[in-house]
């Protein structure tokens, strides 16, 4: 188990074939604010990795860097073996990103949104039809998808938001708080679906504030606070290490310590 990996200036070998994501000494500053500080992380192909942490800890910033939306200040990032600074185009074909705020065209129907993003990902009409039918059926969304998004409930928006990220069947999916505002039944449905992605050997990077979600789904969790990775391991390992009953207690025990300690 890797704990508290600190500066590890090993140069990245190109033998990253088994690693979906390799992050080395990643730093991101916004002016004076250090959003991500010396982050080192490796995520294997087919792994479901949950990135946990308090609000403003740097989870979304990390995902934004991994998906190429923002440039890192320092450090190197490889996604699917490609360098995020130099080879963004092949990365775009590999990844699907479900943003935290549902970004959906409200005047289109759910299905039209899926189709649009299918085309934007370069899919053919036939592929889009098959894939969206599969996705909509799996998540019981077929009827709702025929209606305009304007009338959707919060939970429906989240579902569609996630489906739009997965329309092109990406190898690596970033799901940024995908189940916020869903009722327990819908959430379970999404969990099942995320588990099914795992069986298809997809790599999933999940952020969530629901610890039971992270515990139920993840192969491994990383807890990030003040932009630093302060814990990294399977849920069982972390629970054992910090001698607590569940992941939520791990979270409460090790995050926000600086506030308590007044640093």
């Amino acid at each position: 188990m890797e704990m508290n990996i600190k500066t590890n200036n090993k140069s990245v070998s190109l033998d990253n074939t088994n690693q979906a994501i390799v992050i080395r000494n990643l730093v991101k500053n916004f002016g004076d604010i250090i959003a991500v500080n010396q982050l080192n992380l490796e995520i294997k192909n087919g792994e479901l990795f949950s990135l946990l942490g308090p609000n403003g800890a740097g989870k979304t910033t990390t995902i934004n860097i991994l998906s190429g939306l923002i440039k890192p200040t320092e450090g190197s990032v490889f996604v699917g073996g490609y360098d995020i600074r130099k080879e963004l185009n092949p990365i775009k074909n590999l990844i699907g990103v479900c943003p935290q705020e549902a970004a959906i065209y409200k005047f289109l129907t759910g299905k039209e949104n899926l189709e649009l993003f299918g085309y934007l990902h370069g899919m053919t009409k036939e592929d889009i039809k098959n894939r969206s039918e599969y996705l909509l059926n799996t998540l019981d969304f077929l009827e709702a998808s025929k209606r305009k998004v304007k009338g959707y409930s919060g939970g429906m928006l989240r579902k569609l938001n996630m489906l739009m990220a997965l329309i092109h069947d990406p190898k690596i999916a970033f799901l940024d708080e995908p189940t916020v505002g869903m009722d327990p039944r819908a959430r379970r449905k999404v969990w099942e679906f995320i588990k099914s992605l795992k069986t298809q050997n997809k790599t999933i990077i999940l952020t969530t504030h629901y610890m039971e979600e992270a515990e139920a789904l993840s192969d491994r969790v990383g807890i990030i606070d003040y932009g630093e990775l302060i814990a990294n391991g399977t849920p069982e390992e972390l629970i054992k290490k910090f001698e607590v009953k569940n992941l939520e207690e791990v979270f409460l025990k090790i995050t926000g310590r600086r506030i308590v300690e007044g640093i």
Partner: protein
Amino acid sequence: MNVLRILALVKMELKKIIREPAYLFLMILFPAALTLVFGLAFGTLDTGIPGVNQFDMMTPGLFAYACIFIIMIVAQSFTDDREQGLLKRISLTPTTSSEFMSSHIISNTILSIVQVVIVTVCSVLIGFRPEGSIFGFLIAFMFMIILSICSVGFGLICSTIAKSSGTATALSFIFILPQMFFGTFIPLTETTRVIAYFLPSYYATESLSMILIEGISLTDLSIWINLGILSILSILIILLGILIFKRYGNKNF
């Protein structure tokens, strides 16, 4: 360039107009109402030229105005999409910015064509009888299309500067009003004509008047000079719009 991608974006943009009542109003009712009001107000005023009344003189300006109005629609639409995180989402797909911009130019050109058709129908109903041949019409149309491409550029500039769709609308008037006062349906004096030389819409309106009212021969060099100037201005403005939008317009974090 992936054609399916551009088509999908064009389809989406057009649905945005058709399905949003506010946009639809701006698109269809506004030019129609403007034409009808102008027709009723100025249709009986004499210009001194036999067979040409004041409204006839203004119609080319109305055509140009319909194309200028695209600025507001583009400014609002881009700002809305940015606010909702959609531009960010599109930038996560392999869509290139040239595909994205092409789709906007195509969809907005379609919109301006629709507006021009509406203005044409309304003005003909009121009694406007344009001069010129079919070829003349095609050239007139070309002027309008180039002017609307220019408007897409202005719209992009507005939405880059504006932080919200409300300010985008207000800002778009900075580009709409001067062009409207000095380059469309309002008669120019010696002084205002100097300002007009700097406005793209002036060249469009002037040429439309020459073709549709005066029925000038298309071999006349001034039309082609105007077309050249308008094209150069439009290319510069759309390039400037795309550049600053790419650089500053898609940042919301």
